[in-house]
């Protein structure tokens, strides 16, 4: 059976597309699926860093498209997780180096080798976004509970629907339970009410994600990380499993507990 192409996109930048792509890819690989994460953000390569594979890149996506190497030569396999691979973006070119048709052809080849092809889309709604959208079988929208991120997500969903790539599924990233409780942040319900698409995961704000991202070891590999658990659950849901949404508790620090006692 040919593999499925899942495009991760957001509209707004900085909401955690790349982190989400890396972690869902790890989650699917942990389920024993053959996964390739593809960085389509040509010119602003990131996914390799988050996956900790940056120092092993020889060829990239543009080299494949322009015929300078075979597809297999450009794919970087993860040493610890043999099911996981990366197709990196070119760092020295820009979005115009690849067309939507080329992305579709490339994904057609990858479908033969992998169960899941995870496309990390660039931010924005320009050509790079459309290139990442063109081959998608499923689109996952990442947003944070901020008014601006939600509005941009709404715009992206409009494009996805217009291109008949819907219905997209939603990941709400970086929920801060404390702020939601105080009414300072949009709630999941607020976000869902506006975007009106199926929710596939809620990821709590978790400092361990920042640490693991910088270290190049995705949080989904960390059994103790709350966000890691959330990402593994998203992978299971995308794979077709029914997983209940976990209750998001504020992670209580010692200092926080002391402050509360003093109050």
């Amino acid at each position, binding site marked *: 059976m040919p593999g499925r192409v899942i495009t991760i996109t957001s509209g707004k930048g900085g909401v955690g597309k790349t982190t989400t792509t890396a972690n869902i890819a790890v989650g699917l690989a942990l389920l024993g699926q053959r996964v390739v994460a593809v960085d389509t953000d040509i010119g602003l390569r990131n996914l390799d860093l988050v996956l900790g594979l940056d120092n092993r890149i020889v060829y990239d996506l543009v080299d494949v498209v322009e015929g300078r190497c075979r597809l297999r030569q450009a794919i970087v396999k993860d040493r610890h997780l043999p099911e996981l691979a990366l197709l990196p973006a070119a760092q020295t070119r820009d979005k115009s180096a690849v067309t939507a048709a080329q992305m579709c052809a490339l994904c057609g080849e990858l479908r033969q080798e992998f169960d899941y092809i995870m496309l990390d889309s660039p931010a924005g709604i320009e050509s790079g976004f459309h290139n990442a959208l063109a081959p998608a079988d499923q689109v996952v929208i990442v947003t944070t509970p901020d008014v601006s991120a939600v509005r941009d997500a709404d715009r992206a969903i*409009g494009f996805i629907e217009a291109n008949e790539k819907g219905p997209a599924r939603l990941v709400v990233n970086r929920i801060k339970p404390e702020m939601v409780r105080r009414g300072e942040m949009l709630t999941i319900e607020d976000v869902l009410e506006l975007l009106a698409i199926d929710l596939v995961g809620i990821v709590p704000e978790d400092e361990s994600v920042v640490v693991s991202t910088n270290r190049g070891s995705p949080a989904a590999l960390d059994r103790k990380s709350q966000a890691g658990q959330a990402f593994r659950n998203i992978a299971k849901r995308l794979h077709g499993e029914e997983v209940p949404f976990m209750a998001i508790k504020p992670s209580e620090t010692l200092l926080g507990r002391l402050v509360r006692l003093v109050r």
Partner: protein
Amino acid sequence: MTDRQISVRGTAEGLIVDIGAGDWEGLLRELDRRLSQSASFFRSGRVALRVGARILNRDEIEALGRALQKWDVSLWGIESESLETRAAAASLGLETRLLGGRLFVLPPTAEPEPPAGPSGVSASEGLAVRRTLRSGASLVHRGHILIIGDVNPGAEVIAGGDIVVWGKLRGLAHAGAEGDDAALVCALRLLPSQLRIGSHVSPQPGGARPARDVPRMALVRDDAIVIEAWTDAQVLAGEPSSNLFQRLWRRLAGSSRNA
């Protein structure tokens, strides 16, 4: 692959280009390539496009027209299964019925019709859209607009006549856009980011969210936009600009009470 997505055929009325499903930008590039290859064939010709269910707004259609103009080809019509696309095309004066009456087609709205009432909007010019307008969407129509769905923040609805939203209106709405101060904006949840009626503009009218989520109606009274609860009696008092919409309102307001 690309050949099947764009096909050109000749008819008595001129060339018709079928644009299939797929990435719109890519298809436009392909169309441009085809025109460049056979520039002499198309030169000074007129072309109509069939775009399937695709939703194109005025800007996109205008861009298409400019792209064709580059090759000395004029765009005369757009056929689409999407009402919105047809409305946008019609508002640019393009034909929307190319190949017989297979589809339900809006009455042409390119030429302003003689005034049919105090507002100058004829009753036959309603556009009904059953869809949520997401951020960035723009719906422009010379007549009345009825939306069954929401208008999200960042979307805009501009009507020559009245605007009725059977859902939440949180984007921008401009009723009576051609200067009709008697136009109305009604919504089940009227929380627009900005409201315009005729020549009046009101940022965040009605201030904060009302205590009760009741259907509300905006109209111009004493030279200012005011918002009131949307009830049957008030709609009638507000003298809506056409009988058709009066009936529609009565029905909608009635069913909201039953719900």
